[in-house]
C-alpha cells in the first residue's frame, strides 16, 4: 500500500484500505466521458465498509 495513503489515512482516522478502494474505483472510471452514478457507488463502498466494521465489532 502507498505509504502516503497510510500516513494521511492514519492522520484523519480513516481506514487506508477504504481510501485505496475508492481511488481504485475512480481509476477505473477516469477514462469515461460521463461518470454517472459515481457518488452513489462511492456511498455504497463507504457504507459497506462501515457495515463490515460494525459486524467485526459486534
Amino acid at each position, binding site marked *: 500500500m502507498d505509504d*502516503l*495513503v497510510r500516513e*494521511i*489515512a492514519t*492522520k*484523519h*482516522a*480513516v481506514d487506508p484500505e*477504504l*481510501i485505496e478502494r*475508492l*481511488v481504485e*474505483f*475512480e*481509476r*477505473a*472510471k*477516469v*477514462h*469515461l466521458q460521463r*461518470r454517472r452514478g*459515481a*457518488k452513489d457507488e*462511492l*456511498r455504497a463502498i*463507504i*457504507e459497506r*465498509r*462501515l457495515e463490515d466494521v460494525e459486524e467485526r465489532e459486534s
Partner: protein
Amino acid sequence: MSFHFRSIRLKDWLVYGGETELRFPEFQDGRNLVVVNGQNGFGKTSLLRALEFVFHGRDKRPELIELWNEKARAKGEGTLEVALEFLHGGHVCKLVRGADFKPWGNTVAVTPWVKLFIDGTEDDRQVPDKIEQLLPKECLEFLFFDGAEISRYAQKHQSGGVRDAIEKVLGIPAVRNLRDDLGGLVGALEDEQERLLSATGNAAQLSADIESLKVEEETYTERRADLVERKAALESTKRELEAEAEGIDAIERERNELEEKRRRRATLEERHRELDAQIQQLVSRAPLYLLEAPLRQIVEQSRAQQTPSVRRDRQQAQLQVLRQILEDAKCLCGRDVDHDLERRLTEEVNRLDELAKASGARTAGTTGDLVDLAATVRTLATDRQDGEEIIDRRATVAMQMEEIDTDIDRLRKELEGHDLVSVKELYEQIGVITHQLRELAANIASVDENLARIARDREVKQRERDKLGAGSDQARGVTRTLAETRKVHAAVTEYVERLIEEKRAGIEDCATEIFRMITNKPDEYEAIRLRPDYTLEVLRKDGSVVENEKLSAGEKEVVAYSFITALNLSSVDPAPFVMDTPFGHLDAGHRTGLLHSLPRLKVQAILLATDRDLPPNERDAINGSIAKEFVLRRDQQRALTLIEEC
C-alpha cells in the same frame, strides 16, 4: 513488468506491403532494449505510427486511404490491419485495428473497425473506453515519440493539453475526481440529513447555521483562491524580473568591462605613440651612429699621418729632389730643363717652402676639428637607445591593442540591442513586489484563520445536528455515513495536494539524475526543476536558472528526454517506451549518455534507429542491455519492407 508488447503484425500498412510481424522478446531484467535498425524511408516511422494507430487511430476515410499500402491501394480492394499483442495487468491483450476497402462506383468505400481481445476472448463492450483506460490518448506522445519533435517538451510554457496529459500519466485526475465526488457526496448527505431531521428539535436552526457557515466558507475559499492566484502571478513576475535584473547585471558588468577595455586601449595607444616617436628619433639619428665608427678611424689615421717627423721628412725629400733637378738642369727622365719647366719647378720649391713653414699650424687645426667632430658624434651616440628593444616593445603593445580590439568588438556585439533599463529600477520593482507578496501571504494567513474558525464552528454545529440524528435508524445511518465521508473527503483532499507534490518532486529527482548522466556540462548544471505548470527549468550550480533560449537544440532534447523518462518512471502504470531516431541534435557525448541511460528505464524500450543513430562502437557499449535486434529490409522489386531478426 506489467505492461509490455509481445508482437505487432502489420498488413498492407504504409511501406509494409503484404503481412509482416515483429515478435518482441520476453522482458528480462537488465535487457529491456529492442533495437529496430533501418535506413531512411524503410519504415521506422511507419512502425511508430502503427503503434499510435492501433491504440488511437482515427476513422477518417482520407487518412485511412493514406495509410493503406500503395501497392494494395492500386488493386482497389483489401484490408489494412495492425494487430498488437501485449501484456497488461497480468492479462494477455490483443488489440486489432484496421479498415476494409471495397470498390464503390468510381471510388472506394472504407469501413474502419477495432477489436479487443482479453485473454483470448473478444470484449466488444465500450472498446474505446477500455483502450483509453489501457493507454490514455493524451499520454501517447510521452510514450511513442519522434526524436525530431522531442524538444518541444522543453518549451518555456506547457499548453493546457500537455499539462492534462502529464497529470493523466501521473494518475492525478482519478484522485482529483475522487476528491470532487466525495465533496459532492458530503453535500448530498447533508441535504438528506437535513430533510430527515427537519422536524426534530432545533435541527432547522442548526441547518441554517451550518448553511450560513458554508456560504461564509465558500466566500473565504474563493477569496483564498483569488489571493493564491495573485500571489502565484506576482511570484512569477518577480522571478522574471529577477532573471531580467540578473541579465542586466551581466550586461552592466559587460558594459563596465567594455569601458575598462577602452581605457586600457587608450593607454596602450598612447604608449604605442611614444614608442613610435622613439623609433622615429632613432631613425633620424641613424647617420650619426653610422658616422661614428668611420670618423673615429679617420681621426686615428689623420693623427697617425700628421705626426711632425713624417711630415718634415716628406717635405724635405720633395724639396731635395726638386732642388737637385734645378741644379742639374736635367729632369729625372733625362730631358733638359727648359725655361718654362725651371720657372714651374722654382714655383713649386717656393710653395713647398711656404707649406713647410705653415703646415705645423694647419695640420693641428684640421685634426683638432676632426677630434671635436668625433667627440660630438660620440656624445650624441652615447645616449642611443636599443632600437630592437623599442621595436619589440612597440610590437608587444600593438599585439595587446589587437587583443583588446577583439574583446571590444565581442563586447560591443553582445551589448547590441540591449536597452539601458536601469537595474536599480528593476530592483525597486522587485522590492515593491516582495512587499506585495508579504501582504498577500499575510492576507492568506488571515483567510486561513477564518477558514479554520468556520471549520471548527461547522464541526460543532454538525456534531450537534448529528446527535439529533440518533433518533431514527435512517437518520442515524445517514449521519454515520456523512461523518465517515467527511473524514474520507478531508483525507483525500490532503492526499491530492501531497500526491501532486510528491510526484513532482519524484519527477524532478529522476529527471535530474538522468539529465546529469547525459549532459555535457555536469559541473555547470545542477538540476532540472519542474514548475507547478510542469514547465522545465535547468538550474546552475549556484541555483540560478538557465534561460530557455540559452539552451542549445541538443541540450533542449536532453532536458526533454530526461523529463519524459522521469515521467514514464513516475507513471502509475509504466508503459513501453518507443523512440524514433531520438538523436536529432545530439553530439556524440550526449548520445552516449542517452544510450547508457536507456537500460535504467525498467520498461521495455524500443529504439528505432538509423546507422547514424547507433554506430557500431556505441551499439557495443549497450550490447548487454539489448534483448533483441531487428532490421528493416526493403525489397525494392516488390516495393515492400520486411522486418527481419538480426
